[in-house]
């Protein structure tokens, strides 16, 4: 199903939570919304689910206006952060709940008829085997581990085969190790389902791993939307740059010389093809793009920590600017060492000054 939000705004009393958010979820794709807490991402999910009504703006499902249609009559499935399983029902009954309610769907794709008992049993079994819950069907939620509860919540949401699946930080209640394992399972499962998915998270690794389409939300507004790697490599604003992964944002100014544009930065003069009119801005250098370079800028190692796959090194450039670098463990310098560094990328990403409020902390 194609889902569109048009100029959505929402406020609690006079406190604006979302202001003029427009977005389009690609049909059958996974749209991930990422943002810091308080950015309005959960509110946006509740608007699409129909659990909240926008103060202004509209929501279209396949071109049909569903803005005032209540949740129970929208063709959606929701996985909540806390799972919200029914404690008085078994796993089987939890999964069957959405199949027994006889919802009057507005989507034409699904039948309006209530499924028979046999059909319900089959669908429950399908959802359970999709998530490996066959052996747990007669347990109650209180008898399940966190990871199992998460899978039941997902099975319950997908069993009625909704056209839009909404997930609100579904992995945040799991511990770090389990989360990493479940994350890749979830990615495989979601792409196998082929449903349009709207996924809310604050974890940038999760976002980059799952997203076909990534939306960065900040203070109730869409900061940038697009393919995840594009947002990572070419963020439009310093906020997006520092929110998706670690970023060095170095002051940069455009200089003309010999018919070519060049960037004057603390890491030296770099070639650029920046077409905009702005002369000042920020150069985005990802830590993995900082390399040792015999012709580069002199730098002193301030701090160095081994993280396993790479060493996290803080460098102080000539001139005082601090830069974060990821070096391979075997070549990483010790604190106090001096070296010359440069940038790996051939075409460094330049953010013009007018594009945002300036760099934030990492």
């Amino acid at each position: 199903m194609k889902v569109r939000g048009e100029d959505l705004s929402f406020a609690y009393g006079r406190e604006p939570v979302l202001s003029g958010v427009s977005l389009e979820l690609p049909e059958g794709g996974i749209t991930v919304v990422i943002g810091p807490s308080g950015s309005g991402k959960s509110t946006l999910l509740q608007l699409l689910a129909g659990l909240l009504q926008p103060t202004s703006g509209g929501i279209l499902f396949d071109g049909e206006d569903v803005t005032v249609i209540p949740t129970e009559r929208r063709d959606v499935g929701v996985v909540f952060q806390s799972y919200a399983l029914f404690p008085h029902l078994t796993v089987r009954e939890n999964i069957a709940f959405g199949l027994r309610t006889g919802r009057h769907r507005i989507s034409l794709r699904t039948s309006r008829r209530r499924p028979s008992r046999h059909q319900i049993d089959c669908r429950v079994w399908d959802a359970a085997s999709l998530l490996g819950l066959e052996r747990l069907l007669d347990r109650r939620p209180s008898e399940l581990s966190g990871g199992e509860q998460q899978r039941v919540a997902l099975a319950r949401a997908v069993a009625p085969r909704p056209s839009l699946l909404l997930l609100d930080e579904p992995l945040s209640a799991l511990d770090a190790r389990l989360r990493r394992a479940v994350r890749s399972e979830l990615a495989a499962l979601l792409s196998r389902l082929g449903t349009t998915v709207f996924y809310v998270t604050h974890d940038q690794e999760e976002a980059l791993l799952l997203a076909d389409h990534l939306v960065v939300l900040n203070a109730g507004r869409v900061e940038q939307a697009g393919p995840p790697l594009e947002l990572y490599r070419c963020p439009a604003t310093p906020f997006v740059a520092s929110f998706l992964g670690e970023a060095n944002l170095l002051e940069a100014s455009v200089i003309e010389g010999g018919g070519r544009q060049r960037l004057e930065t603390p890491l030296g003069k770099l070639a650029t093809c920046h077409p905009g009119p702005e002369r000042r801005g920020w150069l985005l250098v990802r830590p993995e793009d900082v390399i040792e370079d015999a012709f580069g800028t002199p730098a002193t190692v301030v701090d160095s920590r081994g993280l396993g796959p790479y060493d996290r090194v803080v460098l102080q450039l000539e001139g005082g600017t601090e830069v974060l670098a990821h070096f391979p463990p075997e070549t990483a310098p010790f604190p106090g060492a001096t070296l010359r560094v440069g940038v790996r990328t051939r075409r460094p990403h330049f953010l013009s000054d007018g594009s945002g409020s300036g760099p934030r902390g990492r």
Partner: protein
Amino acid sequence: MRGRLARQAGIAATAVFALAMISPVVLTAAGAFSDSEWYGQRSEGAGVESTGALFRYVIEIWGRSLLRSAQMVGAVVPLALILGAPAAWAFRMRPYPGSRLLEAAALVPLGVPGVALAFSLLQTAGGAPRFWLLVVGHLAYTIPLVIKTVGNAVDTFDPRIEAAARSLGAGPLQVALRVTLPLLVPALILSSLLVFAVSWGEFNVSFLLATPLLQTFPAALYMTYTTNSFPVAAAATVIFLLPVVPALIAIQALGGEEFHRGLQA
């Protein structure tokens, strides 16, 4: 070593407390079955010779009060649930400006002396039928119990549980019947037992609002203790305790995990 000592001290304290609570009741009840001099004679004008005759006698003189009490409980228990449970649910699941204050205000009657409540009821609605005046008096003391019991049960809900049901296609009625009510059943049973126990034993308001034709059993019990001999009063007490003890045992039994999880659908 220390843990064991603390455990033994705890058991001893519980035993002393239980003994202090139970022994007066046991001694009183025993009075109904004994005719030793220590308990006093069993002569009440009419010949009361055997224990069976004693109970027949009590039923004969206080049967009407017993019936009244049963009627009271029959009216108070459902009314307290119908008025208290939805309020408790709304206070927690649909809080609105001032709902906290209202919930606190609903508990105030628990601290008001029965005398004051009875007289204020007479002042404001003295012309109303006495029975319903009494019912209102009992509701003032029992609705707070329902609000607290059901409110605590609602607090154990996942705040998203009704939203989850709606997202699965359940309309407001289905959410109430398939999710909210089943989850509240244990709390509703518990609070109806509490209301029953309190209403059955309520004395202050009942005594002050009683008329010769409208006397609940606890008020009658008072009359018995002041006018009849001890064995008659003791027999009346035994009759009074008959429905309360099972209710109290049930309340205790319901406190467990079953209560928090909700009943099976």
